[in-house]
């Protein structure tokens, strides 16, 4: 038998796509984000040089101004940093690190948060109270405090050389672990609303197991708020990483992220090399802005009752 409409056709005819294509801000944000994602995640293909390989750069080229300025060299379109690395390449690699940490941390937050939120909301009672108090405790520590604490211990324990290797997973872990309660609370609230609905009772009348009801029936219906906070959380995680790197507890200079580039460049602002800090700064702002704008649009789309103020 023929399916009445294929998934793709359903999507093509949906309000979702129509709304999206008619919202210029969302569409522009999406295009910019895709360009940044492609450039960042595909850094090895797009970057003229490899900033991780010391043999490819020369200290003699340090602090070259961007190509469009006087004394600029054509091979360094956005200038070089204090170690003579091509800013453009370094930024692409830096953005890759930022994006990996941002998405990785959110995946982890979402995983912990969704599981805790589902269990908490579905079973209720004492388990719920215990998990939610745990979330409260977690939230009462600031992200930075937890991160500073853990990174400081790691750097001290393993030494800076070792730290370089585990920096990315560690930051994912730190940022991911610090903000799971956001997800847990959102999911729990949705679960509480969903589990009262009759389709859940119908699933129980069929005799389905609790696990199946939770994951097959309730979870898919709690995902729209999860998508919305995910966009905001990705932006937040990228910011958190940048902030940690800025204070010197994030990515090391040899494997810079956008945040550590801004941090390193900051020292050279007064010697006139503003480009080292400005360009990564602009990229960071644009990246976070487009993600947030997309998140806003998604929130308005999924919850049109919300007042657009």
């Amino acid at each position, binding site marked *: 038998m023929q399916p009445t409409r294929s998934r793709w056709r359903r999507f093509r005819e949906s309000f979702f796509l129509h709304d999206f294509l008619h919202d210029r801000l969302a569409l522009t944000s999406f295009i910019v984000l895709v360009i940044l994602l492609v450039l960042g995640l595909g850094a090895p293909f797009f970057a003229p040089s490899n900033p991780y390989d010391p043999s490819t750069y020369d200290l003699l080229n340090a602090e070259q101004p961007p190509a469009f300025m006087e004394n600029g060299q054509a091979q360094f379109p956005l200038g070089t940093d204090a170690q003579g690395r091509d800013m453009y390449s370094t930024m692409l690699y830096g953005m890759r690190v930022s994006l990996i940490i941002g998405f990785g941390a959110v995946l982890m937050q979402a995983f912990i948060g969704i599981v805790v939120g589902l269990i908490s909301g579905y079973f209720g009672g004492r388990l719920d109270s215990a998990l939610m108090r745990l979330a409260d405790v977690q939230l009462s520590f600031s992200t930075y405090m937890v991160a500073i604490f853990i990174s400081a211990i790691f750097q001290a324990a393993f030494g800076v050389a070792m730290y370089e290797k585990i920096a990315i997973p560690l930051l994912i872990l730190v940022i991911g672990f610090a903000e799971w309660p956001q997800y847990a609370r959102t999911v729990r609230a949705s679960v509480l609303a969903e589990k009262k*609905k009759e389709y859940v009772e119908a699933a129980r009348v069929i005799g389905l197991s609790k696990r199946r009801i939770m994951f097959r029936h309730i979870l898919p219906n709690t995902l729209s708020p999860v998508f919305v906070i995910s966009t905001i959380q990705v932006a937040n995680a990228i910011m958190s990483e940048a902030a940690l790197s800025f204070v010197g507890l994030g990515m090391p200079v040899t494997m810079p992220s956008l945040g550590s580039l801004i941090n390193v460049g900051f020292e050279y602002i007064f010697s006139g090399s503003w480009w080292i800090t400005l360009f990564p700064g602009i990229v960071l702002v644009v990246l976070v802005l487009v993600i947030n704008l997309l998140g806003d649009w998604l929130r308005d789309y999924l919850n049109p009752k919300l007042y657009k103020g």
Partner: protein
Amino acid sequence: MAEQTNDTPLLQVRNVTKHFDISGGLLDQLKWKEGKMRRVRTLVKAVNGVTFRILPGETLSVVGESGCGKSTLGRAIMRIHRPTSGEVIYRGKRVDNLSSHDMKPYRRKMQMVFQDPYASLNPRMTVRQILEEPVRFHNPGMSRDEVKEHVLHTLKQVGLDPDWNNQFPHEFSGGQRQRISIARALVLDPEFIVADEPIAALDVSIQAQILNLLMDMQQKRDLTYLFISHDLSVVEHISTRVAVMYLGHLCEVAPVKEIFNNPKHPYTQALLSAIPRLGGKKKSHIRLGGDVPTPINLPSGCVFHGRCRFADERCRQEMPPIVEHATGRVACHAVEEERI
């Protein structure tokens, strides 16, 4: 009289009580009382000691106003809520205390249709997924084609075009959704269905369609219904017997003709007089003074005494037991003493 035939009942409900604890966390429960800190629990007494039985092939309607516990009773029978006390016996076997695993064979036999056609279907599943899930779950040995065949057959029976099976619920109208909901209950070939206000959320012309479908299915499949409703004209139309509930208590159980022609319990009388009649041939409504008390603080004695014209001292003190009469059962001192 249906009540006295020797048929073995399909379902027996014995003294079923369901109380909900709404007292919240430990801190909310602590109350300052008589100079002492005490732990006070707040209970909603939704269903209190309800006893009845349902014979194979009949339709027993449970009527009452909102908050009278009729939906909770249905859910307690279906084990969505575990009864606080009492027994639910299905074909001679007690089912209210079974584990979910032991309950499984009974889940096939007892199904439920819900009130709200918008909330009772999972919005993220297609019609086919909704209907195939129970079949697969209860018949792990069935092949894909057999499952599909069975689902399509059921869809046709409830009057839906099988070509629509890949659509999502939101693409259907309220009446069609209710058909899907009925199909989900029927797809396991049950014997007994609890229908909780299945037509209350539908438009008048659609109500007739769904009611006809329910009656057709009963005939074709030898179904037994527990029909929960507040709409008395619908109840009059489809039931074999009627049970009237007030504040979690059973007031009166009798065959449908008896209830409508010769209601005994004062509450049943008031309820019936309030039905709006087409054509405005109007008997005067019996006015009930006051409001329904909350099920948290049940009145002493007969729960209806505060609004009853016939209440006397005994009604205020003593709870009337439900007593067998020639035509049915009534829980009322005044009826028993033949004051009415």
